[in-house]
Protein backbone atom coordinates (compact mmCIF):
# COMPACT_ATOMS: atom_id res chain seq x y z
CA UNK A 1 0.00 0.00 0.00
CA UNK A 2 2.84 2.36 0.81
CA UNK A 3 4.41 1.85 -2.56
CA UNK A 4 1.47 3.37 -4.43
CA UNK A 5 2.06 6.64 -2.66
CA UNK A 6 5.78 6.50 -3.13
CA UNK A 7 5.85 6.93 -6.90
CA UNK A 8 6.67 3.43 -8.06
CA UNK A 9 4.40 3.64 -11.08
CA UNK A 10 5.49 5.84 -13.97
CA UNK A 11 3.46 8.97 -14.42
CA UNK A 12 1.30 9.40 -17.52
CA UNK A 13 3.35 12.44 -18.48
CA UNK A 14 6.61 10.48 -18.23
CA UNK A 15 5.76 8.17 -21.13
CA UNK A 16 4.83 11.12 -23.26
CA UNK A 17 8.10 12.81 -22.43
CA UNK A 18 10.09 9.83 -23.71
CA UNK A 19 8.26 10.05 -27.04
CA UNK A 20 8.80 13.77 -27.18
CA UNK A 21 12.49 13.37 -26.59
CA UNK A 22 12.91 11.08 -29.59
CA UNK A 23 10.72 13.42 -31.65
CA UNK A 24 12.91 16.38 -30.79
CA UNK A 25 16.05 14.44 -31.56
CA UNK A 26 14.61 13.63 -34.96
CA UNK A 27 13.51 17.16 -35.76
CA UNK A 28 16.45 19.15 -34.46
CA UNK A 29 19.17 16.63 -35.46
CA UNK A 30 22.57 18.30 -35.64
CA UNK A 31 21.53 21.79 -34.59
CA UNK A 32 21.82 20.93 -30.92
CA UNK A 33 24.47 19.27 -28.83
CA UNK A 34 22.45 17.16 -26.45
CA UNK A 35 18.93 16.52 -25.25
CA UNK A 36 18.38 15.19 -21.72
CA UNK A 37 15.37 14.73 -19.53
CA UNK A 38 15.57 16.67 -16.25
CA UNK A 39 12.62 16.15 -13.99
CA UNK A 40 9.61 17.77 -15.56
CA UNK A 41 11.46 19.49 -18.40
CA UNK A 42 13.60 18.56 -21.37
CA UNK A 43 16.98 20.23 -21.43
CA UNK A 44 18.37 21.15 -24.83
CA UNK A 45 21.97 22.30 -25.00
CA UNK A 46 22.77 24.30 -28.08
CA UNK A 47 25.41 26.72 -29.38
CA UNK A 48 24.28 30.39 -29.37
CA UNK A 49 24.47 30.69 -33.18
CA UNK A 50 21.72 28.13 -33.67
CA UNK A 51 19.23 29.78 -31.33
CA UNK A 52 17.19 31.47 -34.07
CA UNK A 53 16.75 28.26 -36.07
CA UNK A 54 15.89 26.14 -33.07
CA UNK A 55 13.35 28.56 -31.62
CA UNK A 56 11.75 28.93 -35.05
CA UNK A 57 11.49 25.17 -35.36
CA UNK A 58 10.06 24.83 -31.86
CA UNK A 59 7.47 27.53 -32.41
CA UNK A 60 6.34 26.73 -35.92
CA UNK A 61 6.51 22.95 -36.08
CA UNK A 62 2.89 21.70 -35.85
CA UNK A 63 3.95 18.79 -33.63
CA UNK A 64 5.63 20.98 -31.03
CA UNK A 65 4.03 24.45 -31.09
CA UNK A 66 5.88 25.98 -28.15
CA UNK A 67 3.86 29.17 -27.90
CA UNK A 68 4.49 30.16 -24.27
CA UNK A 69 7.58 32.07 -23.25
CA UNK A 70 8.33 31.03 -19.70
CA UNK A 71 11.32 33.16 -18.85
CA UNK A 72 14.99 33.80 -19.31
CA UNK A 73 17.78 33.64 -16.77
CA UNK A 74 21.54 34.00 -16.61
CA UNK A 75 23.90 31.95 -14.56
CA UNK A 76 27.44 33.14 -14.06
CA UNK A 77 30.12 31.52 -11.98
CA UNK A 78 33.76 30.55 -12.09
CA UNK A 79 33.07 27.19 -13.64
CA UNK A 80 30.25 27.79 -16.08
CA UNK A 81 28.33 30.60 -17.71
CA UNK A 82 25.11 30.01 -19.50
CA UNK A 83 21.75 31.46 -20.46
CA UNK A 84 18.62 29.50 -19.75
CA UNK A 85 15.42 30.00 -21.73
CA UNK A 86 12.19 28.28 -20.83
CA UNK A 87 9.58 27.53 -23.50
CA UNK A 88 6.30 25.74 -23.04
CA UNK A 89 3.35 24.71 -25.11
CA UNK A 90 -0.29 25.22 -24.34
CA UNK A 91 -1.41 22.40 -26.65
CA UNK A 92 0.66 19.49 -25.38
CA UNK A 93 2.83 18.68 -22.41
CA UNK A 94 5.97 20.15 -23.97
CA UNK A 95 8.24 22.13 -21.67
CA UNK A 96 11.82 22.71 -22.74
CA UNK A 97 14.82 24.53 -21.34
CA UNK A 98 17.29 25.91 -23.85
CA UNK A 99 20.79 26.16 -22.43
CA UNK A 100 23.43 28.21 -24.22
CA UNK A 101 27.01 28.30 -23.05
CA UNK A 102 28.64 31.72 -23.13
CA UNK A 103 31.99 33.27 -22.46
CA UNK A 104 32.07 34.94 -19.07
CA UNK A 105 33.05 38.34 -20.49
CA UNK A 106 30.25 38.91 -22.94
CA UNK A 107 27.35 37.40 -20.99
CA UNK A 108 25.66 40.78 -20.43
CA UNK A 109 25.76 41.79 -24.07
CA UNK A 110 24.71 38.38 -25.28
CA UNK A 111 21.84 38.51 -22.81
CA UNK A 112 20.42 41.51 -24.65
CA UNK A 113 21.16 39.94 -28.04
CA UNK A 114 19.31 36.79 -27.07
CA UNK A 115 16.36 38.86 -25.88
CA UNK A 116 16.38 40.57 -29.28
CA UNK A 117 16.24 37.26 -31.13
CA UNK A 118 13.50 35.88 -28.89
CA UNK A 119 11.58 39.15 -29.22
CA UNK A 120 10.81 38.28 -32.81
CA UNK A 121 8.83 35.25 -31.70
CA UNK A 122 7.54 36.19 -28.25
CA UNK A 123 6.29 39.59 -27.08
CA UNK A 124 7.21 38.97 -23.47
CA UNK A 125 10.91 38.61 -24.26
CA UNK A 126 11.23 42.35 -24.83
CA UNK A 127 11.08 42.89 -21.06
CA UNK A 128 14.43 41.16 -20.57
CA UNK A 129 16.30 43.83 -22.54
CA UNK A 130 16.25 45.83 -19.31
CA UNK A 131 17.23 49.48 -19.14
CA UNK A 132 18.19 49.72 -22.81
CA UNK A 133 14.52 49.26 -23.71
CA UNK A 134 13.35 52.21 -21.64
CA UNK A 135 16.12 54.65 -22.56
CA UNK A 136 14.68 55.62 -25.94
CA UNK A 137 11.03 55.88 -24.93
CA UNK A 138 9.13 59.08 -24.23
CA UNK A 139 6.94 59.01 -21.16
CA UNK A 140 5.30 61.84 -19.28
CA UNK A 141 4.55 60.24 -15.91
CA UNK A 142 7.03 58.34 -13.80
CA UNK A 143 5.62 56.47 -10.84
CA UNK A 144 8.24 55.52 -8.23
CA UNK A 145 7.97 52.31 -6.18
CA UNK A 146 4.99 52.36 -3.85
CA UNK A 147 4.74 51.45 -0.20
CA UNK A 148 2.62 48.33 -0.35
CA UNK A 149 4.19 44.89 -0.52
CA UNK A 150 4.05 43.92 -4.17
CA UNK A 151 4.16 47.38 -5.69
CA UNK A 152 7.46 48.36 -4.15
CA UNK A 153 9.97 46.72 -6.45
CA UNK A 154 9.60 48.53 -9.76
CA UNK A 155 9.13 51.91 -11.41
CA UNK A 156 6.37 52.41 -13.93
CA UNK A 157 6.97 54.84 -16.77
CA UNK A 158 3.75 55.85 -18.43
CA UNK A 159 2.84 57.74 -21.53
CA UNK A 160 -0.62 59.03 -20.69
CA UNK A 161 -3.14 61.05 -22.60
CA UNK A 162 -5.08 63.00 -19.95
CA UNK A 163 -5.93 60.14 -17.60
CA UNK A 164 -5.82 57.19 -19.97
CA UNK A 165 -2.66 55.10 -20.16
CA UNK A 166 -1.41 54.76 -23.72
CA UNK A 167 1.93 53.03 -23.19
CA UNK A 168 3.61 51.63 -20.11
CA UNK A 169 7.09 50.39 -19.34
CA UNK A 170 8.08 48.61 -16.17
CA UNK A 171 11.60 49.15 -14.91
CA UNK A 172 12.96 46.85 -12.22
CA UNK A 173 16.16 48.78 -11.56
CA UNK A 174 15.56 48.89 -7.79
CA UNK A 175 15.18 45.17 -7.40
CA UNK A 176 18.44 43.97 -8.91
CA UNK A 177 20.10 42.96 -5.68
CA UNK A 178 21.01 39.34 -6.21
CA UNK A 179 24.65 38.37 -6.50
CA UNK A 180 25.48 36.03 -9.36
CA UNK A 181 26.78 33.41 -6.99
CA UNK A 182 25.05 33.92 -3.70
CA UNK A 183 24.99 30.14 -3.21
CA UNK A 184 28.72 29.65 -3.53
CA UNK A 185 30.50 28.11 -0.51
CA UNK A 186 27.07 27.42 0.93
CA UNK A 187 26.10 24.03 2.28
CA UNK A 188 22.72 22.71 1.24
CA UNK A 189 21.19 23.10 4.69
CA UNK A 190 22.30 26.75 4.69
CA UNK A 191 20.65 27.22 1.33
CA UNK A 192 17.41 25.69 2.60
CA UNK A 193 17.46 28.18 5.47
CA UNK A 194 17.67 31.27 3.27
CA UNK A 195 15.80 30.24 0.14
CA UNK A 196 12.37 31.01 1.57
CA UNK A 197 13.20 34.73 1.17
CA UNK A 198 12.62 34.30 -2.54
CA UNK A 199 8.89 34.14 -1.96
CA UNK A 200 8.17 35.61 1.43
CA UNK A 201 4.46 35.80 0.98
CA UNK A 202 4.35 32.01 1.13
CA UNK A 203 7.71 30.93 2.47
CA UNK A 204 7.32 27.16 2.44
CA UNK A 205 7.21 26.74 -1.33
CA UNK A 206 10.83 27.57 -2.34
CA UNK A 207 12.10 25.24 0.40
CA UNK A 208 9.76 22.51 -0.73
CA UNK A 209 10.86 22.97 -4.33
CA UNK A 210 14.56 22.73 -3.49
CA UNK A 211 14.18 19.75 -1.18
CA UNK A 212 11.99 17.79 -3.54
CA UNK A 213 14.43 18.45 -6.38
CA UNK A 214 17.27 16.98 -4.34
CA UNK A 215 15.08 14.07 -3.29
CA UNK A 216 14.38 13.43 -6.97
CA UNK A 217 18.13 13.31 -7.57
CA UNK A 218 18.76 10.96 -4.66
CA UNK A 219 15.74 8.79 -5.60
CA UNK A 220 14.53 9.20 -2.04
CA UNK A 221 11.03 8.09 -1.12
CA UNK A 222 9.19 9.95 1.59
CA UNK A 223 7.11 8.43 4.34
CA UNK A 224 3.41 9.12 4.26
CA UNK A 225 3.47 11.18 7.42
CA UNK A 226 6.14 13.51 6.04
CA UNK A 227 4.11 13.99 2.89
CA UNK A 228 1.01 14.85 4.89
CA UNK A 229 2.87 17.33 7.07
CA UNK A 230 4.19 19.01 3.92
CA UNK A 231 0.73 19.19 2.38
CA UNK A 232 -0.72 20.64 5.58
CA UNK A 233 1.86 23.40 5.62
CA UNK A 234 1.39 24.09 1.90
CA UNK A 235 -2.33 24.63 2.35
CA UNK A 236 -1.91 26.79 5.47
CA UNK A 237 0.58 28.99 3.64
CA UNK A 238 -1.72 29.17 0.63
CA UNK A 239 -4.57 30.44 2.81
CA UNK A 240 -2.26 32.96 4.46
CA UNK A 241 -1.03 34.23 1.09
CA UNK A 242 -4.50 34.63 -0.33
CA UNK A 243 -5.69 36.48 2.78
CA UNK A 244 -2.70 38.79 2.45
CA UNK A 245 -3.73 39.39 -1.15
CA UNK A 246 -7.28 40.28 -0.16
CA UNK A 247 -6.21 42.61 2.63
CA UNK A 248 -3.90 44.43 0.25
CA UNK A 249 -6.80 44.91 -2.17
CA UNK A 250 -8.90 46.22 0.74
CA UNK A 251 -6.07 48.57 1.66
CA UNK A 252 -5.98 50.07 -1.81
CA UNK A 253 -9.76 50.41 -1.80
CA UNK A 254 -9.54 51.91 1.73
CA UNK A 255 -12.11 49.38 2.81
CA UNK A 256 -11.32 49.45 6.50
CA UNK A 257 -13.51 46.71 7.85
CA UNK A 258 -12.40 44.12 5.31
CA UNK A 259 -8.77 45.08 5.87
CA UNK A 260 -9.02 44.63 9.58
CA UNK A 261 -10.99 41.36 9.45
CA UNK A 262 -8.54 39.84 6.96
CA UNK A 263 -5.70 40.82 9.27
CA UNK A 264 -7.34 39.02 12.17
CA UNK A 265 -7.86 35.81 10.19
CA UNK A 266 -4.33 35.95 8.82
CA UNK A 267 -2.96 36.28 12.33
CA UNK A 268 -4.95 33.19 13.28
CA UNK A 269 -3.37 31.23 10.41
CA UNK A 270 0.11 32.56 11.19
CA UNK A 271 -0.40 31.48 14.80
CA UNK A 272 -1.11 27.93 13.65
CA UNK A 273 1.96 28.00 11.40
CA UNK A 274 4.02 29.27 14.28
CA UNK A 275 2.98 26.43 16.54
CA UNK A 276 4.08 23.98 13.85
CA UNK A 277 7.27 25.56 12.51
CA UNK A 278 8.30 28.07 15.15
CA UNK A 279 8.35 31.03 12.80
CA UNK A 280 5.70 33.30 11.35
CA UNK A 281 6.62 33.84 7.73
CA UNK A 282 9.94 32.18 6.88
CA UNK A 283 9.61 28.62 8.18
CA UNK A 284 12.94 26.85 7.47
CA UNK A 285 11.05 23.65 8.16
CA UNK A 286 11.42 21.30 5.18
CA UNK A 287 14.40 18.96 5.27
CA UNK A 288 15.77 16.55 2.71
CA UNK A 289 13.86 13.35 3.32
CA UNK A 290 11.10 14.81 5.47
CA UNK A 291 10.48 17.71 7.78
CA UNK A 292 12.28 19.23 10.75
CA UNK A 293 9.90 18.45 13.54
CA UNK A 294 6.98 16.17 14.22
CA UNK A 295 3.46 17.48 14.62
CA UNK A 296 2.00 16.65 18.02
CA UNK A 297 -1.56 15.57 18.63
CA UNK A 298 -2.20 18.81 20.55
CA UNK A 299 -1.35 20.90 17.50
CA UNK A 300 -3.72 18.87 15.36
CA UNK A 301 -6.54 19.37 17.83
CA UNK A 302 -5.69 23.08 17.89
CA UNK A 303 -6.06 23.24 14.11
CA UNK A 304 -9.25 21.20 14.31
CA UNK A 305 -10.65 23.69 16.81
CA UNK A 306 -9.75 26.69 14.63
CA UNK A 307 -11.02 25.38 11.29
CA UNK A 308 -14.75 26.10 11.72
CA UNK A 309 -13.95 29.57 13.08
CA UNK A 310 -11.77 30.30 10.07
CA UNK A 311 -14.41 29.02 7.70
CA UNK A 312 -17.14 31.12 9.28
CA UNK A 313 -15.11 34.29 9.41
CA UNK A 314 -13.74 34.06 5.89
CA UNK A 315 -17.22 33.29 4.62
CA UNK A 316 -18.40 36.41 6.40
CA UNK A 317 -15.65 38.52 4.83
CA UNK A 318 -16.60 37.16 1.42
CA UNK A 319 -20.25 37.88 2.04
CA UNK A 320 -19.80 41.48 3.13
CA UNK A 321 -17.35 42.17 0.33
CA UNK A 322 -19.34 40.57 -2.45
CA UNK A 323 -22.68 42.01 -1.30
CA UNK A 324 -21.29 45.54 -1.47
CA UNK A 325 -22.27 46.96 -4.83
CA UNK A 326 -19.61 49.69 -4.55
CA UNK A 327 -16.82 47.12 -4.46
CA UNK A 328 -18.33 45.16 -7.33
CA UNK A 329 -18.59 48.31 -9.43
CA UNK A 330 -15.02 49.30 -8.59
CA UNK A 331 -13.48 45.94 -9.46
CA UNK A 332 -15.61 44.89 -12.38
CA UNK A 333 -14.37 45.27 -15.96
CA UNK A 334 -10.92 46.62 -15.19
CA UNK A 335 -7.64 44.89 -15.98
CA UNK A 336 -9.20 42.23 -18.13
CA UNK A 337 -6.87 39.37 -19.05
CA UNK A 338 -8.11 37.38 -21.98
CA UNK A 339 -7.26 33.70 -22.32
CA UNK A 340 -4.85 34.26 -25.20
CA UNK A 341 -2.88 37.05 -23.53
CA UNK A 342 -2.53 35.04 -20.33
CA UNK A 343 -1.17 32.05 -22.24
CA UNK A 344 1.07 34.16 -24.44
CA UNK A 345 2.83 35.75 -21.47
CA UNK A 346 3.20 32.46 -19.64
CA UNK A 347 1.10 33.41 -16.63
CA UNK A 348 0.29 30.55 -14.27
CA UNK A 349 -1.65 29.97 -11.11
CA UNK A 350 -4.84 31.73 -9.99
CA UNK A 351 -4.35 34.56 -12.51
CA UNK A 352 -4.52 32.06 -15.36
CA UNK A 353 -7.40 30.16 -13.80
CA UNK A 354 -9.36 33.40 -13.41
CA UNK A 355 -9.30 33.88 -17.17
CA UNK A 356 -10.70 30.43 -17.83
CA UNK A 357 -7.85 27.94 -18.24
CA UNK A 358 -7.88 24.87 -16.04
CA UNK A 359 -4.29 24.43 -14.95
CA UNK A 360 -3.24 23.12 -11.57
CA UNK A 361 -0.07 21.13 -10.90
CA UNK A 362 -1.66 19.65 -7.81
CA UNK A 363 -4.12 17.86 -10.06
CA UNK A 364 -2.06 17.41 -13.21
CA UNK A 365 1.17 16.03 -11.83
CA UNK A 366 1.68 13.71 -8.93
CA UNK A 367 2.62 16.54 -6.61
CA UNK A 368 3.37 15.27 -3.06
CA UNK A 369 0.30 13.07 -2.54
CA UNK A 370 -2.62 15.23 -3.50
CA UNK A 371 -4.09 12.18 -5.25
CA UNK A 372 -5.39 10.88 -1.91
CA UNK A 373 -7.50 13.96 -1.31
CA UNK A 374 -10.59 15.24 -3.04
CA UNK A 375 -10.78 18.86 -4.08
CA UNK A 376 -11.67 20.94 -7.10
CA UNK A 377 -9.76 23.65 -8.88
CA UNK A 378 -11.92 26.74 -9.22
CA UNK A 379 -11.93 28.29 -12.68
CA UNK A 380 -13.19 31.75 -13.54
CA UNK A 381 -14.53 33.15 -16.74
CA UNK A 382 -14.11 36.91 -17.12
CA UNK A 383 -10.52 37.44 -16.09
CA UNK A 384 -11.05 40.86 -14.55
CA UNK A 385 -10.02 42.08 -11.10
CA UNK A 386 -13.26 40.92 -9.49
CA UNK A 387 -12.83 37.43 -10.87
CA UNK A 388 -9.30 37.27 -9.50
CA UNK A 389 -10.53 38.20 -6.02
CA UNK A 390 -13.36 35.64 -6.20
CA UNK A 391 -10.94 32.91 -7.33
CA UNK A 392 -8.80 33.56 -4.26
CA UNK A 393 -11.80 33.24 -1.97
CA UNK A 394 -12.81 29.97 -3.60
CA UNK A 395 -9.28 28.62 -3.34
CA UNK A 396 -9.21 29.47 0.34
CA UNK A 397 -12.33 27.35 0.87
CA UNK A 398 -10.82 24.47 -1.11
CA UNK A 399 -7.66 24.73 1.00
CA UNK A 400 -9.71 24.64 4.20
CA UNK A 401 -11.41 21.53 2.89
CA UNK A 402 -8.01 19.99 2.17
CA UNK A 403 -6.70 20.84 5.64
CA UNK A 404 -9.75 19.20 7.13
CA UNK A 405 -9.14 16.02 5.13
CA UNK A 406 -5.43 15.99 5.99
CA UNK A 407 -5.86 16.30 9.74
CA UNK A 408 -8.62 13.70 9.80
CA UNK A 409 -6.53 11.08 7.96
CA UNK A 410 -3.21 11.90 9.54
CA UNK A 411 -1.01 8.78 9.14
CA UNK A 412 1.36 7.32 11.70
CA UNK A 413 5.05 6.80 11.05
CA UNK A 414 8.35 8.62 10.87
CA UNK A 415 8.43 12.25 9.89
CA UNK A 416 11.96 12.17 8.42
CA UNK A 417 14.32 9.67 6.88
CA UNK A 418 17.64 9.86 8.63
CA UNK A 419 20.38 10.69 6.17
CA UNK A 420 23.91 11.84 6.81
CA UNK A 421 23.52 15.37 5.56
CA UNK A 422 27.01 16.82 6.18
CA UNK A 423 28.62 13.99 4.27
CA UNK A 424 26.04 13.73 1.55
CA UNK A 425 27.38 12.82 -1.87
CA UNK A 426 25.39 13.17 -5.04
CA UNK A 427 25.58 11.60 -8.39
CA UNK A 428 26.49 14.74 -10.39
CA UNK A 429 23.49 15.67 -12.45
CA UNK A 430 20.97 18.19 -13.62
CA UNK A 431 17.47 18.57 -12.28
CA UNK A 432 14.59 20.98 -12.69
CA UNK A 433 11.59 21.00 -10.41
CA UNK A 434 8.18 22.63 -10.72
CA UNK A 435 5.82 23.33 -7.89
CA UNK A 436 2.39 24.89 -7.58
CA UNK A 437 2.80 27.90 -5.29
CA UNK A 438 -0.03 30.40 -4.58
CA UNK A 439 1.11 32.74 -7.36
CA UNK A 440 1.68 30.10 -10.00
CA UNK A 441 4.36 27.61 -10.97
CA UNK A 442 7.62 28.01 -9.10
CA UNK A 443 10.58 26.54 -10.92
CA UNK A 444 14.08 25.64 -9.81
CA UNK A 445 16.84 24.50 -12.15
CA UNK A 446 20.09 23.26 -10.70
CA UNK A 447 23.27 21.49 -11.60
CA UNK A 448 24.69 19.48 -8.77
CA UNK A 449 28.31 18.59 -8.25
CA UNK A 450 29.57 15.96 -5.85
CA UNK A 451 29.16 17.97 -2.66
CA UNK A 452 27.77 21.38 -3.53
CA UNK A 453 25.33 22.96 -5.89
CA UNK A 454 27.26 24.26 -8.88
CA UNK A 455 24.62 26.43 -10.44
CA UNK A 456 21.17 27.38 -9.34
CA UNK A 457 18.47 29.23 -11.25
CA UNK A 458 15.26 30.27 -9.52
CA UNK A 459 12.29 31.40 -11.52
CA UNK A 460 9.13 32.59 -9.85
CA UNK A 461 5.75 33.02 -11.53
CA UNK A 462 5.37 36.68 -10.53
CA UNK A 463 7.81 37.79 -13.22
CA UNK A 464 5.42 36.70 -15.95
CA UNK A 465 2.50 38.40 -14.21
CA UNK A 466 4.51 41.60 -13.96
CA UNK A 467 5.43 41.55 -17.65
CA UNK A 468 1.79 41.02 -18.50
CA UNK A 469 0.89 43.93 -16.20
CA UNK A 470 2.65 46.18 -18.69
CA UNK A 471 0.22 44.99 -21.35
CA UNK A 472 -3.04 45.07 -19.45
CA UNK A 473 -2.80 48.52 -17.92
CA UNK A 474 -2.89 50.03 -21.39
CA UNK A 475 -6.21 51.78 -21.92
CA UNK A 476 -7.06 51.91 -18.22
CA UNK A 477 -7.30 55.13 -16.23
CA UNK A 478 -4.51 56.28 -13.93
CA UNK A 479 -6.42 55.59 -10.72
CA UNK A 480 -6.79 51.92 -11.50
CA UNK A 481 -3.10 51.15 -12.04
CA UNK A 482 -2.38 50.29 -8.41
CA UNK A 483 -5.45 48.13 -8.15
CA UNK A 484 -4.75 46.18 -11.34
CA UNK A 485 -1.11 45.54 -10.53
CA UNK A 486 -1.99 44.52 -6.98
CA UNK A 487 -4.62 42.11 -8.28
CA UNK A 488 -1.86 40.18 -10.09
CA UNK A 489 -0.42 39.12 -6.71
CA UNK A 490 3.20 39.99 -7.39
CA UNK A 491 5.72 38.65 -4.93
CA UNK A 492 8.78 40.96 -4.94
CA UNK A 493 11.23 38.20 -4.01
CA UNK A 494 10.61 36.50 -7.31
CA UNK A 495 11.26 39.71 -9.21
CA UNK A 496 14.59 39.88 -7.40
CA UNK A 497 15.60 36.54 -8.85
CA UNK A 498 14.53 37.45 -12.36
CA UNK A 499 17.29 39.94 -13.03
CA UNK A 500 20.75 39.65 -11.66
CA UNK A 501 22.47 42.87 -10.88
CA UNK A 502 25.19 43.95 -13.22
CA UNK A 503 27.41 46.00 -10.95
CA UNK A 504 27.38 47.33 -7.41
Amino acid at each position, binding site marked *: MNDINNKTYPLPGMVFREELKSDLEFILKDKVDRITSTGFDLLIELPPENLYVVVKELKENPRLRANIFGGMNTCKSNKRNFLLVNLRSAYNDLSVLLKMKMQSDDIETSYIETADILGEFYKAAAFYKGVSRIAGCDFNIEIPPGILDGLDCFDIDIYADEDKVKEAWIDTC*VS*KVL*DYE*FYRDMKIYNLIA*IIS*RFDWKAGIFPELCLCSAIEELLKLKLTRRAQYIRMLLCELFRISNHLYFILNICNILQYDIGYSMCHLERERILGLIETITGSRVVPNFIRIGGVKRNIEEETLSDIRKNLPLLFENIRRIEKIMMDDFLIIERLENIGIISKNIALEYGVTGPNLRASGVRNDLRKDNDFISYRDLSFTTPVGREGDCLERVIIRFREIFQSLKLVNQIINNFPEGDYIKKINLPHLEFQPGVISQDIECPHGIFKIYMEVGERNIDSLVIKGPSVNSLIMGEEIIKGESLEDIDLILMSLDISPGEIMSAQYKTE*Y
Partner: protein
Amino acid sequence: MSAIFKSNLNLLVTGYGCCKQDIFAVQGALYDIQRFCINFVNTPEDADLLVVQGFYNKEGIIRVLNIYERMSNPRGVIAVGTCVLNKNLFSKNSKLLAWLRSTVKIYMYVPGCPPRPEAFIYAVLRIMNES
Protein backbone atom coordinates in the same frame (compact mmCIF):
# COMPACT_ATOMS: atom_id res chain seq x y z
CA MET B 1 4.34 70.66 25.66
CA SER B 2 7.45 68.97 24.31
CA ALA B 3 5.99 65.64 25.36
CA ILE B 4 3.00 66.33 23.14
CA PHE B 5 5.18 66.91 20.11
CA LYS B 6 7.14 63.77 20.76
CA SER B 7 4.18 61.46 21.10
CA ASN B 8 2.60 61.61 17.67
CA LEU B 9 4.78 59.81 15.12
CA ASN B 10 4.37 59.31 11.40
CA LEU B 11 6.38 56.47 9.92
CA LEU B 12 7.47 55.95 6.35
CA VAL B 13 8.58 52.46 5.34
CA THR B 14 11.05 52.17 2.48
CA GLY B 15 12.63 49.30 0.63
CA TYR B 16 11.23 45.93 -0.16
CA GLY B 17 11.76 42.78 1.80
CA CYS B 18 10.24 40.18 4.05
CA CYS B 19 10.21 42.48 7.06
CA LYS B 20 7.57 44.60 5.40
CA GLN B 21 4.70 42.21 5.96
CA ASP B 22 5.50 41.91 9.64
CA ILE B 23 5.82 45.69 9.97
CA PHE B 24 2.43 46.21 8.34
CA ALA B 25 0.89 43.42 10.42
CA VAL B 26 1.17 45.98 13.20
CA GLN B 27 -1.62 47.98 11.55
CA GLY B 28 -4.02 45.09 11.93
CA ALA B 29 -6.62 44.70 14.60
CA LEU B 30 -4.55 42.37 16.76
CA TYR B 31 -1.61 44.69 17.34
CA ASP B 32 -3.34 47.98 16.43
CA ILE B 33 -0.45 50.45 16.54
CA GLN B 34 -2.80 53.39 15.97
CA ARG B 35 -3.84 53.30 19.61
CA PHE B 36 -0.38 54.65 20.44
CA CYS B 37 -1.03 57.42 17.96
CA ILE B 38 1.44 56.08 15.43
CA ASN B 39 0.53 56.25 11.75
CA PHE B 40 2.06 55.04 8.53
CA VAL B 41 2.20 57.72 5.86
CA ASN B 42 2.78 57.72 2.15
CA THR B 43 4.75 60.88 1.52
CA PRO B 44 8.18 61.78 2.86
CA GLU B 45 7.13 65.34 3.66
CA ASP B 46 4.75 64.16 6.36
CA ALA B 47 7.01 61.59 7.92
CA ASP B 48 8.91 61.96 11.18
CA LEU B 49 10.72 58.65 11.23
CA LEU B 50 12.15 56.61 8.37
CA VAL B 51 11.99 52.83 8.60
CA VAL B 52 14.78 51.21 6.57
CA GLN B 53 14.34 47.52 5.85
CA GLY B 54 14.94 44.95 3.17
CA PHE B 55 17.21 44.75 0.18
CA TYR B 56 18.94 47.70 -1.48
CA ASN B 57 21.26 48.07 -4.40
CA LYS B 58 23.13 51.21 -5.37
CA GLU B 59 20.07 52.78 -6.93
CA GLY B 60 18.01 51.89 -3.86
CA ILE B 61 20.45 53.56 -1.48
CA ILE B 62 20.40 56.75 -3.55
CA ARG B 63 16.61 56.76 -3.41
CA VAL B 64 16.54 56.24 0.36
CA LEU B 65 18.87 59.18 0.88
CA ASN B 66 16.68 61.28 -1.43
CA ILE B 67 13.65 60.38 0.62
CA TYR B 68 15.48 61.32 3.80
CA GLU B 69 16.36 64.71 2.35
CA ARG B 70 12.75 65.34 1.42
CA MET B 71 11.53 64.76 4.97
CA SER B 72 10.69 68.17 6.40
CA ASN B 73 11.47 67.48 10.05
CA PRO B 74 13.37 64.19 10.31
CA ARG B 75 13.67 62.66 13.73
CA GLY B 76 15.89 59.76 12.74
CA VAL B 77 15.96 56.31 11.25
CA ILE B 78 14.86 52.88 12.47
CA ALA B 79 16.85 50.04 10.94
CA VAL B 80 14.87 46.81 10.78
CA GLY B 81 16.05 43.31 9.98
CA THR B 82 19.26 41.43 9.48
CA CYS B 83 19.70 42.59 5.88
CA VAL B 84 20.24 46.14 7.09
CA LEU B 85 21.94 45.45 10.40
CA ASN B 86 24.39 42.72 9.59
CA LYS B 87 24.79 41.65 6.00
CA ASN B 88 22.55 41.26 3.05
CA LEU B 89 21.67 37.64 2.52
CA PHE B 90 21.94 37.79 -1.23
CA SER B 91 24.73 40.26 -1.86
CA LYS B 92 27.60 39.95 0.54
CA ASN B 93 29.32 43.19 -0.37
CA SER B 94 26.39 45.35 0.65
CA LYS B 95 27.51 48.47 2.50
CA LEU B 96 24.10 49.83 3.37
CA LEU B 97 24.69 50.27 7.09
CA ALA B 98 27.99 52.06 6.53
CA TRP B 99 26.32 54.37 4.04
CA LEU B 100 23.49 55.09 6.43
CA ARG B 101 25.70 55.63 9.45
CA SER B 102 27.89 58.10 7.64
CA THR B 103 24.96 60.29 6.62
CA VAL B 104 22.03 59.93 9.02
CA LYS B 105 21.38 59.28 12.68
CA ILE B 106 20.07 55.81 13.37
CA TYR B 107 17.71 55.89 16.32
CA MET B 108 16.94 52.25 16.90
CA TYR B 109 18.01 48.84 15.65
CA VAL B 110 15.43 46.04 15.46
CA PRO B 111 17.14 42.67 14.96
CA GLY B 112 15.50 39.56 13.58
CA CYS B 113 14.95 37.98 10.22
CA PRO B 114 12.20 39.10 10.02
CA PRO B 115 11.52 40.68 13.45
CA ARG B 116 8.24 39.98 15.13
CA PRO B 117 5.58 42.73 15.15
CA GLU B 118 5.91 43.07 18.92
CA ALA B 119 9.59 43.88 18.51
CA PHE B 120 8.78 46.65 16.08
CA ILE B 121 6.12 48.12 18.36
CA TYR B 122 8.56 47.98 21.28
CA ALA B 123 11.18 49.88 19.28
CA VAL B 124 8.76 52.65 18.32
CA LEU B 125 7.45 52.95 21.88
CA ARG B 126 11.01 53.24 23.17
CA ILE B 127 11.51 56.21 20.87
CA MET B 128 8.24 57.76 22.03
CA ASN B 129 9.00 57.44 25.72
CA GLU B 130 12.55 58.76 25.49
CA SER B 131 12.68 62.37 26.59
